Structure formats: C-alpha cells, structure tokens
C-alpha cells in the first residue's frame, strides 16, 4: 500500500544531480521556491517548466516511477484547477450553464496556479529523491551555522531531523506489520462505512505509539551509553565538498532568475 510513496524517499543513481553538494541543492530549492512566484505569464511558466524537466531528466529518475508516485498529487493539482476555474469571476465570460459561469481569467489563473503547484512538488521531490536524508541534514546544519551565534540550537534541530527521517522507513515497516497482524484478526481497513474505517485505525495507532515511545527511549539510552553530549566540539565523519558543478548549477538558476525578470509582464 505504502510501497508506492515517493515522498522523502531516496533513489540511488549515478547522476549529475545525485553528485551535487547538498548545500547547493538546498539553496537551489530555496531559490526556486522564491522565483517561481515571479512567473506570471505563459513565457515565464514555460521557462520554469523547461528548467524543472531539465533537472528531472538530469537526475535519471525513471519517469514511470515518478508518475506512479505523483499520481495522488495530480488529483490535488486538478482539484485546485477546478476550484480556480469555477470561483474566479474576472475577464471575459467563456461559458455559461445555469448558475455555472466560467471566465477567461479563471481558466488562466487555474492553469497557472496548478502549474506552479506541480513544478514545486516536482522540484522538492527531486531534492529528496536524489539526496540521502543524512546529506540533507548535514547540508542544512552547515547552511544554518551562522544562526548558531543567535543561540539557535542548529545541531539539535539537525539531529532531530535526521532521527525523524531515519525512522520513517522503520515506522512504515512497523505500520505494515501491525496492519497485517490486525487484518489477520479481522480488521477491514479498506472497506465498509467511513465510521468503521475510522474506528479501524485505533488498533493500528495505539501499537504504533507504544512502540515509538519504546524505541525513542531505547535510542536515547543507546546514545548516552556511547557518550553523546550534543554538538559542542563534535567532528564530522562525512565532509561536504563544494565542486565546480555546484557553482555551475547555481549560476544556471541565476540566469533563469534574470530571464524571469525580463520575461514577466
């Protein structure tokens, strides 16, 4: 059931994108999320689309896999599209059927917003698909280093993040296991009225909570037993290295940003 999930999942491959420094990838995503709001006409959206698909192509993630994983999201995108199309009342009237009126501006806005949404999802999934969770955390920790001066607990945040990312697969496995055990005891997770289905979640959630708390405690003990004392003076096993490719990527995004400024209306 959860086998198809692609969020937060790393797909190993040997590609340019995989080899980028996590810091540059994080910066690219952050910038991308900002500049996507610069797009406001067809030219700019097409440019962003080309860039997104160019990056996806370079990552060598099988397209069929992406499609399978994004299917549920496509519904969400379509839903936003429909909302926009029906509820924006600007521009020329295109179509009318009883109380339903569709305006030109609505269609335009709908398409733009769902495209923006779609590209955002693609790019952010690209980050997690091509970067190991541990690399993302390392990158974030280094990028946020300056904030340490303001007594912001950067190391602790990074640790929390890496622990939670580390335990996502474990939790999924555990969910699958307990689900199967309860199905074998006659629970029906998929069918029946909504009320029964909500009730069916209880035999799943309680064991999950219990085991998560137990695991957290065991982890804390194991860390203390090995002398963990926080980030102060802690050295790193994995060293990040900034390469020419990272600079080129950032440069490429800078060009895109300039083009966006020039093309936007």
């Amino acid at each position, binding site marked *: 059931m959860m086998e198809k999930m692609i969020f937060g999942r790393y797909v190993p491959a040997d590609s340019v994108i995989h080899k980028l420094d996590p810091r540059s990838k994080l910066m690219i995503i952050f910038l991308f999320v900002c500049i996507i709001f610069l797009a406001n006409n067809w030219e700019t959206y097409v440019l962003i689309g080309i860039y997104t698909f160019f990056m996806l192509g370079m990552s060598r993630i099988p397209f*069929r896999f992406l499609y399978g994983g994004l299917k549920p999201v496509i519904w969400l995108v379509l839903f936003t599209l429909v909302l926009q199309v029906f509820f924006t009342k600007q521009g020329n009237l295109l179509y009318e059927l009883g109380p339903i009126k569709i305006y030109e501006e609505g269609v335009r806005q709908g398409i733009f917003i769902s495209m923006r949404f779609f590209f955002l999802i693609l790019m952010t999934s690209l980050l997690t698909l091509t970067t190991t969770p541990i690399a993302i955390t390392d990158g974030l920790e280094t990028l946020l280093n300056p904030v340490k001066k303001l007594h912001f607990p950067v190391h602790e945040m990074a640790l929390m993040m890496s622990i939670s990312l580390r335990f996502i697969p474990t939790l999924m496995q555990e969910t699958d296991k307990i689900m*199967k055990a309860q199905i074998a*005891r*006659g629970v029906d997770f998929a069918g029946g009225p909504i009320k029964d289905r909500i009730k069916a979640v209880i*035999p799943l959630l309680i*064991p999950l909570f219990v085991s998560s708390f137990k695991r957290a405690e065991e982890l804390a003990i194991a860390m203390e037993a090995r002398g963990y004392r926080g980030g102060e003076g802690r050295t790193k096993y994995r060293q990040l290295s900034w390469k020419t490719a990272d600079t080129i990527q950032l440069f490429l995004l800078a060009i895109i940003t300039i083009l966006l400024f020039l093309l936007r209306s």
Partner: protein
Amino acid sequence: MDISLSHVEYRYQANTPFESLAIQDVSIDIPAGTYMAIIGHTGSGKSTVLQHLNALLQPTEGTVLIGSHEIKAKQKNKNLKNIRQKVGIVFQFPEHQLFEETVEKDIIFGPMNFGVSETEAKKRARHALSQVGMQEEILNKSPFDLSGGQMRRVAIAGVLAMEPDVIVLDEPTAGLDPRGRKEIMDMFYALHKERKLSTILVTHSMEDAAKYADQIVIMQNGMVAKKGTPEEIFSSPKELIQMGLDVPEVVRFQLKMEERMGRKMSKIYLTIEQLTSAVTELIVSGERV
C-alpha cells in the same frame, strides 16, 4: 482445510526501482491436519510464504488454494474475511499487536470482528487464556502492565479465540526464556494433536522442526530447496550443513559418535529419547558379542 501453493512467485514493490523478487516457483501442499515446519535463513522468503497462507499477500505469479478459495495472480479477490477467520496467524512478536484497555477486550477483538457474539467471545477468551497457561485474574488488567512473556501469551490467546482451522506461527517463541519456549511449543503441539489443527511453523530452530513437525520445507534464496519428512530431511545432514543450515543437536551428536566409533547406525534419530535407547541397545548388544 487444505492449503496448497502452486508455482507462487512474489515481487515486492513490483514496477518500481525498488522491485525485489522475494519468492519464486514455490509449490507446497499442506493437507488438513499436517504439522509443517518451514525452515530457512533470514531473507530466504519464509515470511513471504507465510503471508500467502492467509491472503495477506497476493501472488504476482501462480495460485494459492485455501480450502475452496482460489487466489490467483492479477485478479481481484473478495470475501477474504472468511479465509482470515479460518487461518489464524501468530506473527513474530505478536505482543506488538495488543492495543485494547483490558486483556479481555483484546482477546475478544478477533472473534467479534468475525461476527461472534460478545458472550460467546468472552467464553472463548477464558478458554483461550487457560490454554496459554494464564490465570483469569488478568482479564481485567491492561495488557501493557504485563511482562513481555505474558503479553506474548495474551496475544496468542487472541488468535486462538478466533478458533481457526489452520494456525500459522512465525517464530512464536523468539525472545522467550527456555521454559516459556517449551511451554508454548508444547501447547501448540497439544492443540494440533487434540483438535487436528493444521499447524505451520516458520522457524530457525531445527530442534523444534525435528521434534514437532510431520513435514519440513527448507527455503533458500526464495525457493523451496528441499521438502519431506524430518527423517528424510535429516538423513542427509551433510547437505544441510552445506546449505549453511544447522542440524539438530541430537543428529550432530549421532554423527560425531558414528565418526569416532567408525561405524554407522541404521537410521537418523531425531529425539534424545530415541537416540538414547538406540545407543543403549548398541552398548548392550556390543557387550554380548
């Protein structure tokens, strides 16, 4: 109820980059009333086979026949609930599935899902609890206040209370102390004998397989490497050792002894009692000669 797997193949996460073949061309027949042990290394596909016995997994190739219900690859299946009542599974570390406020509620959860009335389910709960060797007093306790071993027993009682025709055990004694192990294994064996309950035991323990099973299936790399009665399986111990599997202590003892004495005994003995009497006989007759 008979269960039979024919040419079953299962791939995890088919059609993704993570696809992996778990089992392949697995054919096993489990006639009603059999005690079968499935043995193999971690990752040999034992647990995947087990999940097919109750339609928790649908084969990606081949057919599983459970009673009169046929489960085929690439076909929608309905009325699986029926199967699930007939085939009870005790998963590894079954105590992880406990969730109710009281032991009683947890045990009756299974039966009530299958439409048993509350009074009947409560009756069954008491019976199941005594089967697993526990006192009725704990019925109103929270399962989370029990010790690990007690939780295990309560979880097993929860499956027994469903009164299945077939019971599937996935290393039911992992992590228990030797006494608890023996008690639980003996309890399942007694159930098998009394109620003609088909029992399928997935285990690492050659000792248990030799002691209890009528049929043994050895899995290796997702395929059935060998199947037969314990006598057949353990009659060629060298082969098992080559597969990287263990041989029961008794058999190992016999092999060492034969090596030292430079003579072979007529057959392989599977329990300490059998071997002891055979050796005694050997010694006694040796003295006479």
